[in-house]
């Protein structure tokens, strides 16, 4: 660690008054108590805001992952572009969703997915963000609240057993997932559908519930 000249002279002056170790310790404890106080007052809000900001910043990466998860891996058909009909076929069978707005987008790799998202505009990077956030944070919230409630109403002895605790936590997580699973399906579908207003399959979540039905939203809950 390099110290500036100003710091060096300040430390020399201070060391004549106090031994350096005592001074450093006092300063450290002072800083610790200050930060503890600040953390007690603002900590939760600051941590929440920072988490939200980071989640929003990295959401396009999650979106990219989801887009590729949803795309089946097939060998890329490379059609020769000799005749007009062959060129037309190559154009129609291209992976770019813009050419086939009523067909779900399918990406063979990161490059087409990134390019497609960039072409569709900045809002395309946050498709399904609200649903994804609701799914992730609601399940965490439900899990923590039910866990707290169970802890307060049950015997401590029960929770000391590792197996019981594991089973209870897994069941609570499953229960939370049961409640918020429609948001997961909604996020997946919003990511897949066209970003263009004219070609959207579902306008919003209520529209999705109306068109698809709850049974379809609870699909693959078994995993």
């Amino acid at each position: 660690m390099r110290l500036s000249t100003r710091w060096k002279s300040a430390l020399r002056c201070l060391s004549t008054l106090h031994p350096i170790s005592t001074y450093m310790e006092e300063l450290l404890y002072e800083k610790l108590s200050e930060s503890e106080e600040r953390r007690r007052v603002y900590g939760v809000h600051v941590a929440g805001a920072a988490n939200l900001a980071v989640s929003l910043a990295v959401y396009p990466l999650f979106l990219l992952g989801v887009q590729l998860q949803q795309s089946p891996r097939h060998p890329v058909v490379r059609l020769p572009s000799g005749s007009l009909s062959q060129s037309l076929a190559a154009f129609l069978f291209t992976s770019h969703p813009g050419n086939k707005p009523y067909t779900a987008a399918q990406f063979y790799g990161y490059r087409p997915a990134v390019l497609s998202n960039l072409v569709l505009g900045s809002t395309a990077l946050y498709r399904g963000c609200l649903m994804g956030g609701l799914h992730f944070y609601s399940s965490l919230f439900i899990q923590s609240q039910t866990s707290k409630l169970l802890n307060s109403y049950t015997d401590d002895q029960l929770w000391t057993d590792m197996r019981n605790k594991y089973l209870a936590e897994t069941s609570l997580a499953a229960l939370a997932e049961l409640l918020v699973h429609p948001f997961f399906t909604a996020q997946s579908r919003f990511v897949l559908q066209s970003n263009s207003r004219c070609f959207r399959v579902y306008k919003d979540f209520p529209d999705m519930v109306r068109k698809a039905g709850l049974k379809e939203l609870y699909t693959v809950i078994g995993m």
Partner: protein
Amino acid sequence: MLPKQALLVAWQYAIPHVDVALDEYLGRKKKFSALVLARETALASLGFLLIYPILTVQRRAAVQSPTLGMRPLLSRSCTQLAWHMLRHEGVTSLYRGFAAFTLAVMVTQVAVWVNAMPTVTQYVWLKYDDSARDEIKRIIDE
């Protein structure tokens, strides 16, 4: 819904044991170092990455619908769909988008860990106390 949650909770329970084993193996007891942060981030992220194939199958199944604009219906069963993916697309199909997802999870976990630390000030002062004391003594002795 149980396999995903069971795996995640099991991994959360395993983290302290892995932590202790790693500590013993590496022989490092020093806290608040970049290595500890990296290690804890990697451990926390690994839980999400363990369930990645399950997530992929879920994602693929969630977008199957007779509605125009969604994927055509292959199977309602998760196991059948997973088997179909393995048979026709290979194991790599279960790990599509893995790099982007990993990067996103790692960044989020780093943020969670930095937030979990008391404050950045405390972190800096503890580091300062550890590393700079000898140098300060040397400067004063000169």
